[in-house]
């Protein structure tokens, strides 16, 4: 037998990015310290190395940033759409030019593989700015009547799973429609948002139009509650989303929430098996499963369960887990110790409740936060791992017998963000998709994103749509 084909290390060069030892808040076009002088450290999840020390925003800083955004709003919203578009196009081009640097930065701060930041995150970030730049001078034709008006100051709070991409989803439509923004990145991944602040300066964006406030939940809460914020956009956990909804209730603030999910990936017996296996892997192991629209519940038709699981297990054995900076890494690090603890606890519950756990042989690095790709079989609707969002590389496998049962099980969740259908039969795709209560339904693919496509949830997965023409509505007074 031939010897194995071992891939030599192929690390992306870290030298393309220059991370400063400390960063400030970005308010009114300037980097400044926090009012109370507080700072926090951001670490690389794959090594636990401290990357930088970042100013930590408090209530006073939120107020300062909202005032700056309010001041900038008047001129910014009065600019002709074509002028705002020029800034957005410029930002998009700078992102493309600096994409290698930003990809490396994101991989260091988030822990996800460079392959993903390079081939998914960064191209999508630039595409999002290009797309909404194109809308800025065409708002009259977006279906909201003549001359739709912006809302004012948008307070935006984003998660750590796609730091720069979530920023793009929030900032691009807000600026295109004439709003100004105060954005709080997650405390574990503040760096790419601060680099984006630098890009805003490079693009000559007027001061105060974009303000970035790294910080913790208290800063987010202060931003959401600030009386001079007109619009609140949040992506994150359902628990925090509910808290935000309570905070803004009774105010005039417009709210969009993009929350958790427990996506069903439904594989029928006539599915293209090899591609379905790829789709399942991409659905749950993309970004270590830390994706709100992950296909975390595999619903497989009972008649092909064994065949499919054999193929899936064989495929999982080829996944390459390790140094996220290596270009051949498929599975990187979990974003934080806290998230790792949550995944571990849910997986233990899965085992305790009698589901069968399986992982491929896989060596985890000694330092950093890691979790092996995991598969649970013998899972029923009653198991916690079939109901709660795990937000990690853990797939629960359930079976069904008929299309009706598949739809019933897929919809039997408090969430409703995403779903996937795998079948070679076009009519079945359409019939099943119509019955699924999920914001995004992929057919014969999974986790495909495009700025032209609206994204958002049903039920506890939130409300409002981001992306596409629909994404404009959240930032317009309509």
């Amino acid at each position, binding site marked *: 037998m031939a010897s194995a084909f071992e891939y030599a290390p192929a690390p992306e060069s870290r030298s393309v990015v220059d991370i400063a030892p400390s960063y400030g808040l970005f308010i009114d076009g300037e980097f400044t310290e926090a009012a109370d002088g507080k700072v926090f450290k951001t670490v690389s999840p794959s090594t636990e190395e401290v990357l930088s020390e970042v100013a930590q925003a408090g209530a006073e800083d939120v107020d300062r940033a909202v005032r700056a955004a309010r001041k900038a709003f008047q001129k910014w919203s009065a600019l002709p759409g074509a002028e705002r578009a020029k800034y957005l196009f410029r930002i998009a081009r700078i992102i493309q030019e600096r994409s290698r640097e930003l990809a490396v930065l994101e991989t260091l701060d988030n822990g996800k593989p460079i392959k993903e930041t390079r081939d998914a995150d960064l191209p999508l970030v630039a595409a999002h700015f290009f797309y909404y730049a194109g809308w800025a001078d065409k708002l009259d034709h977006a279906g909201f009547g003549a001359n739709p008006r912006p809302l004012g100051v948008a307070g935006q709070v984003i998660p750590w799973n796609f730091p720069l991409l979530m920023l793009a989803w929030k900032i691009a439509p807000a600026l295109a429609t004439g709003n100004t923004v105060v954005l709080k990145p997650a405390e574990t991944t503040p760096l790419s948002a601060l680099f984006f602040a630098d890009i805003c300066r490079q693009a000559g964006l007027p001061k105060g139009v974009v303000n970035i406030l790294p910080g913790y939940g208290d800063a987010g809460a202060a931003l959401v509650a600030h009386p001079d914020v007109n619009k609140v956009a949040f992506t994150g956990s359902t628990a925090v989303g509910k808290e935000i909804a309570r905070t803004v209730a009774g105010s005039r603030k417009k709210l969009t929430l993009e929350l958790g999910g427990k996506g069903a990936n439904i594989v029928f017996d006539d599915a*293209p098996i090899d*591609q379905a296996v790829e789709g399942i892997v991409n659905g749950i192991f993309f970004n270590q499963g830390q994706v709100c629209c992950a296909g975390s519940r595999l619903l497989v038709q009972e008649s092909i369960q064994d065949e499919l699981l054999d193929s899936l297990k064989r495929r999982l054995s*080829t996944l390459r887990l390790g140094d996220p900076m290596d270009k*051949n890494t498929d599975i990187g690090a979990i974003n934080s110790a806290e998230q790792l603890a949550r995944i571990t606890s849910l997986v233990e519950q899965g085992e305790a409740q009698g589901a069968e756990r399986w992982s491929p042989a896989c060596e985890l690095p000694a330092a950093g936060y890691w979790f092996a790709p995991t598969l649970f079989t013998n899972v029923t609707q009653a198991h916690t791992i079939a109901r709660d969002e795990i937000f990690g590389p853990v797939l629960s496998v359930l079976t069904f017998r008929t299309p009706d049962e598949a739809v019933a099980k897929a919809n039997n969740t408090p969430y409703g963000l995403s779903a996937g259908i795998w079948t070679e039969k076009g009519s079945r795709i359409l019939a099943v998709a119509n019955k699924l209560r999920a914001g995004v339904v992929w057919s014969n693919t999974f986790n495909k994103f495009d700025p032209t496509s609206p994204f958002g949830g049903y039920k506890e997965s939130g409300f409002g749509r981001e992306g596409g023409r629909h994404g404009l509505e959240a930032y317009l007074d309509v």
Partner: protein
Amino acid sequence: MYSRYARRYARLVTMPTSAPAALADVTASDSTLRRFLHGLPGVDAVGLEARAASLGTRSIKTTAKAYAIDLAISMVDLTTLEGADTPGKVRALGAKAVHPDPTDASTPSTAAVCVYPDMVAAAKAAVAGSGVKVASVATAFPAGRAALAVKLADVADAVAAGADEIDMVIDRGAFLAGDYMKVYDEITAVKEACGTSARLKVIFETGELSTYDNIRRASWLGMLAGADFIKTSTGKVAVNATPANTLLMLEAVRDFRAQTGVQVGVKPAGGIRTTKDAIKFLVLVNETVGADWLDNHWFRFGASSLLNDLLMQRQKLATGRYSGPDYVTVD
């Protein structure tokens, strides 16, 4: 003339079928064969191409690259299939196959030279004693539009001249017309004509089969009929080997072995010209079927210009600088 060949090879045409025991029922009749092939899982074109493209982003450096280059060289079926082929040209090709890089004796030989049947004797002489095999395209290559008896005569000539391997083309017309049994019977007949001395590579001409579903069906059809290798293309049409169609055929040989225990080789041919491309194919092999196929007994490249690029990259790895086309031999 035709009747003479027909009589001579009639025995071969009526030989019993050769499907492995596990799948013997499949080839019992036209309709069982058809049902089986159409019952294979469908192929989603977008997903298949996306998977092939994503494996194409693997970064193969330093020691891994050196290993891959030597492996690729050892897997080349160094090919000349021109109307203008002469014994002299074939001799030069044979010498190149045995010692691809005259400046570096550590360079592995290629797997085989691949020639038309009338050049087999010349090729045999050129590689005598080296371990390099002689493969011959037969069966009215590349169109395959000839009577079965003519095709079998073509094969018999090549085998008689000492060919170690026969690269046959299937009857794409019959396949596209849905006459799977005709294709099957032809392959089994050619397999018989190969006897025990020659391994059979079955060329589907994937560019003419056009859909991935067809390529999967053809792969199973070829393996059921006793192919030792399944091969993408002749190199004579617009679309030849691609990462996606090769990935699909690798999946087919993987699944066939799982069901029957029989291992079948894969040969992408045509259009693979650079080391970078060749390494992408080896990554496909590595991550789809694994180490069992990383050997020139089970995987080949049908190519002519690829070898010189592999040699230049090999020299670059050894010396740290690029040499240029004047530092590899032109044959």
